[in-house]
């Protein structure tokens, strides 16, 4: 029983084997890709392992405290930011091995030519609640 984040990057992960920008896919390839993601999430709900899935807009704003009585300062987006999160899925699984297995399946989502993208997904464990028994 451990939660993991499967993180998809727009930018910042190593380039996948089947990398073609999505704008160059056929409409059918895009539909197939979306369908694969939806089916994957539905399957995880069936197995009782699904927690959350969200996608993020590629462009955001940086916000900073500007001092007492002043409105926050906003800036960006910064073109040079190396890491850009595209979205995530949160899973609740029995083992790290299971988390790796599922991340591998998600990474097999089809892209250009209907072939798996082999996208690199980042797998991050959640910090859990502390156990009761420690000694």
């Amino acid at each position, binding site marked *: 029983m451990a939660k993991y984040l499967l993180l998809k990057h727009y930018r910042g992960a190593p380039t996948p084997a089947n990398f073609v920008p999505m704008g160059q896919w056929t409409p059918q390839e895009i539909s197939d890709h979306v369908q694969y993601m939806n089916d994957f999430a539905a399957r995880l709900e069936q197995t*009782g392992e699904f927690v959350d899935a969200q996608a993020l807009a590629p462009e955001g704003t940086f916000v900073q405290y500007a001092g007492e009585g002043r409105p926050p300062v906003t800036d960006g987006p910064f073109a040079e930011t190396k890491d850009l999160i595209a979205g995530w899925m949160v899973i609740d699984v029995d083992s790290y091995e299971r988390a790796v297995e599922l991340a591998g399946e998600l990474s097999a989502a089809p892209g250009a030519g209907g072939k798996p993208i082999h996208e690199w997904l980042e797998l991050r464990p959640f910090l859990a609640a502390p156990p*009761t028994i420690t000694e």
Partner: protein
Amino acid sequence: MNEALLRRLTPSVLAVLVRRGADFAAAEDAVQDALVEAVRVWPADPPRDAKGWLVTVAWRRFLDATRADTARRRREDHVDEEPAPGPVPGADDTLQLYFLCAHPSLTASSAVALTLRAVGGLTTRQIAQAYLVPEATMAQRISRAKRTVSGIRFDRPGDIATVLRVLYLVFNEGYSGDVDLAAEAIRLTRQLAAQVDHPEVAGLLALMLLHHARRTARTAPDGSLVPLAEQDRGRWDTGSIAEGVTILQAALARDRLGEFQAQAAIAALHADARTAEETDWVQIVEWYDELARLTDSPVVRLNRAVAVGEADGPRAGLAALAPLDDALPRHTAVAAYLHERDGDLTTAARLYTEAARKAPNLAERDHLTRQAARLNVRRSR
């Protein structure tokens, strides 16, 4: 409305339905329906015989569901329309339910969820909240678990060790939401101990009671962890400790030692010390030796190294730590502590920082970061 009563009755009502020949999964759904109905009806119209009421309503729900099901599938009705003759048996055989819900064919998380629902009488929503997953996910986890065990015969005794592992998990892991999982684990283990005479069941119950006794002393008002040595022992629950010790002594007297009894013995020795300095570390090391023989778990040997450090000094503790794999969870934290005790504050501060980075939960990470900060401040003065 007495929710505790409803929850206590849940497994025996379910056991009655299953004994009458109802399929486990369908019976479990029917009992949940009856519980919901009880919550609705009882406040205005409390029954004289609560269990009998639940059995009647659950059985009717089961028949309705089965009829609807069979009508839909145009299948023959295999179920007797009328309850088996004779009174509802008074004797509980909920023991079989524990075995079924902890069946080895289930994953740990499924066994935990199914036990909490079918034996504990919790709702799917409560269980979902306790484990921070969506209700739909938990509902699927439970119905999948029920399908997995649906073909298993109900009358065969299972392995008590699998049941104990599930109850231990309920006690040890999860979030404190609406439901107090630790208290629920104690209730279910107590109920199990009343059903089956086994020293390890008693050992687990004692272990839970002894740890639960320290609960309020374990966290500071700001939510941070208070280590055992720094806890205000006046806040330990002496009633819970006394009960745990009594149960443990009776179990140990039967001379069939197991890992939960040995763990409880260690907890009892801590509970026995009025101050941290009075702790009988030599005996604790002996119990860790027993535990290592029983389980051969590297985590036990790690905890043993801490105890050796207290009994024979930090150098001895570091020597006990040396052969262990440093990839073990909390290995770095233990090394940091022993180096600090040994007076090597530079190494200790570095290791506390490293241990914080590897900590599996937020409370431990914050605690270890504070340890590093404490040493760094002291060194820079």
